[in-house]
């Protein structure tokens, strides 16, 4: 193990790796601070640049962007009252009143420190939980168990589709189906190609990702520009980090630990994501905190709960992705896909086959969280300029990076046209409130699910499925959890309440 950790340090000591991490953190903070763009778009823009890099710098860039873009959204929530990302909505509820009261520097200080602390606590959980979970998966990871695990990941589709679960299921099935087009992974026989040569190798991941996120977002921003007026920012030239005496106020450290662990735990569970974690942690803190009555009026306890839980999700969400190859949220599906493009297959074998990559990921995530403080200084000082950046230039660059990213992996123009088609469909789905995240999760998990199902059939050898299942109690338990996860949101009374308040679609 010590050897692996030393090897991981060797990987990240590369100047290219460190510079990519720094660039990723700054870029992620800036993109996160721009309302509407968010983590998925920031990561998608970076993917083409990673294709020619080694795996170390590529992971550094993506982790830097991932950790910082969540935080970046909070800056616009405090100074603009427009959360840059959906998960920053609670931060806006506390941070904006504080900024309005002339305490913008203090609010940003609390936001930054809580984010960093939440992120670091989640890194600690990741370091402990991922190897243990991987070891358990190796022990109990038969095809039926993996099938059940994937079903658990898919069951989160209903929780990602607040408002209409049927819409979520339809989009998830669409994603699962898209992945079946082309060559069958086992026999090489063709399915649903309708005679098209271009469809023989299937629909690549990049057209799906780029169509669903950056391109649909571009159309949505053009659409929104006719519906909304540009918000006005509160001027602020820096931040004031909270002192130790500020932290010592009764209940604050407990609040930080509770909210971070809550965020981390909810991040591990598939489908809950940072938005749900934030609202749950925020409402718990409101109930428990001695200053609960001041929530909504600019209370630091509220900021601590919201920010630490949001950033703690990053480490938590990486646990099932790295240990089992099951992404619980769309951003993790993107990370998973990019790692696969680099020849790294997250899952039960990752710990055994590439332990240096796993440890490098842990170290890079810790470093990314620590880099948030200098990135915050940079971003807050230039925030006025960032939001004044002409939308046309920004969107133009997003289109260029996205389409080049689609063209690069296969050098095929068909992929570019497919992206455009998926982007238009995803845009219409978004304005009709069909959640697009289940489509991506379905697409990423589909091939694995079919492969494992086929393995189960071969193992059965014509025997009874019931008997085979009864011999696998772990799989039964996982299937039961999957069914509960799938069905529970249908019975949850007005579960969309807390998310609707943000008026932002959960991407």
């Amino acid at each position, binding site marked *: 193990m010590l050897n692996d950790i030393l090897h991981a340090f060797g990987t990240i000591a590369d100047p290219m790796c460190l510079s990519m991490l720094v660039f990723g953190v700054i870029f992620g903070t800036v993109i996160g601070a721009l309302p509407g763009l968010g983590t998925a778009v920031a990561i998608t823009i970076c993917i083409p640049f990673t294709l020619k890099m080694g795996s170390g710098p590529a992971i550094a860039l993506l982790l830097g962007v991932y950790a910082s873009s969540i935080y970046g959204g909070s800056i616009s929530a405090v100074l603009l009252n427009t959360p840059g990302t959906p998960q920053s909505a609670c931060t806006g509820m506390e941070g904006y009143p504080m900024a309005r009261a002339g305490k913008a520097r203090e609010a940003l200080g609390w936001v930054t420190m809580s984010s960093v602390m939440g992120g670091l606590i989640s890194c600690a959980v990741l370091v402990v939980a991922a190897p243990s979970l991987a070891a358990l998966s190796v022990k109990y990871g038969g095809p039926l168990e993996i099938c059940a695990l994937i079903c658990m990941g898919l069951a989160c589709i209903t929780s990602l589709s607040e408002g209409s679960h049927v819409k979520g299921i*339809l989009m998830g099935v669409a994603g699962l189906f898209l992945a079946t087009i082309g060559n069958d992974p086992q026999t090489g026989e063709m399915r649903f190609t309708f005679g098209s040569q271009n469809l023989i190798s299937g629909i690549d991941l990049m057209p799906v990702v780029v169509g669903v996120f950056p391109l649909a977002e571009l159309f949505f921003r053009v659409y929104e520009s006719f519906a909304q007026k540009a918000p006005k920012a509160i001027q602020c030239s820096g931040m004031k980090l909270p002192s130790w005496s500020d932290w010592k106020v009764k209940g604050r450290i407990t609040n930080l630990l509770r909210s971070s662990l809550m965020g981390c735990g909810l991040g591990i569970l598939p489908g809950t994501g940072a938005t749900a974690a934030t609202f749950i942690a925020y409402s718990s803190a409101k109930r428990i905190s001695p200053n609960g009555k001041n929530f909504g009026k600019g209370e630091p306890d509220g900021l601590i709960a919201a920010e630490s839980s949001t950033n703690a999700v990053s480490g938590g969400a990486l646990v099932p992705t790295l240990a089992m190859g099951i992404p619980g949220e769309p951003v993790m599906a993107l990370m998973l896909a990019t790692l696969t493009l680099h020849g790294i297959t997250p899952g039960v074998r990752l710990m055994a086959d590439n332990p240096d990559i796993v440890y490098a990921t842990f170290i890079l995530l810790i470093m990314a969280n620590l880099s948030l403080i200098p990135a915050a200084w940079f971003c807050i000082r230039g925030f006025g300029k960032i939001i004044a950046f002409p939308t046309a230039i920004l969107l133009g660059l997003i289109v*260029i990076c996205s389409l080049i990213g689609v063209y690069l992996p296969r050098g095929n123009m068909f992929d570019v046209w497919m992206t455009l088609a998926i982007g238009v469909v995803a845009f219409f789905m978004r304005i009709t409130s069909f959640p697009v995240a289940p489509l991506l999760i379905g697409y990423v998990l589909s091939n694995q699910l079919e492969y494992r199902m*086929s393995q189960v059939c071969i193992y059965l050898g014509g025997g009874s499925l019931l008997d085979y299942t009864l011999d696998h109690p772990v799989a039964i338990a996982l299937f039961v959890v999957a069914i509960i996860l799938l069905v529970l949101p249908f019975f949850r009374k007005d579960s969309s309440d807390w998310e609707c308040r943000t008026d932002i679609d959960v991407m």
Partner: protein
Amino acid sequence: MANRGNILLGGIFLAIGLILLKVAYEPHEMLFADPNALHIMTYPKILIYIWIIGSVFYAFGKKDCSTWDDFKKSKFQLLKVLLCIAFYAITFEYLGLFISTLLFLLVFFWVMNYRNRLTVPVALLCASITWISFEKLLGIPMPRPFFLDLF
């Protein structure tokens, strides 16, 4: 309760599902697989059945509250942006990265009403940065302009 929009969209989904189901039921021989392996159409069939059931639930389920007012206001702008990207995709293949990016940005800025004395220099700068980053620094092979092959 159900409204016309739901029934129309649900109907379209249902039609897509039925067409795919028809394709899935066409005979497909399993030439290379283990005799016990899952048939190549079994998994898609399961998905299509779930899709069809979901479509019916959607068509006759909770009323969809989506409004199209903002879309009506922005539809021409959206169409212009879409055509702009399509124009980029076409020119990218024949004119190469630099020229197509420059042309795309000029047209896109014009469509997005970004028209001032900086428009051309910004487009030129962005196209140059893109070209240098992808073709020179990352060394990624891109389509060559067709006229270079003429000489």
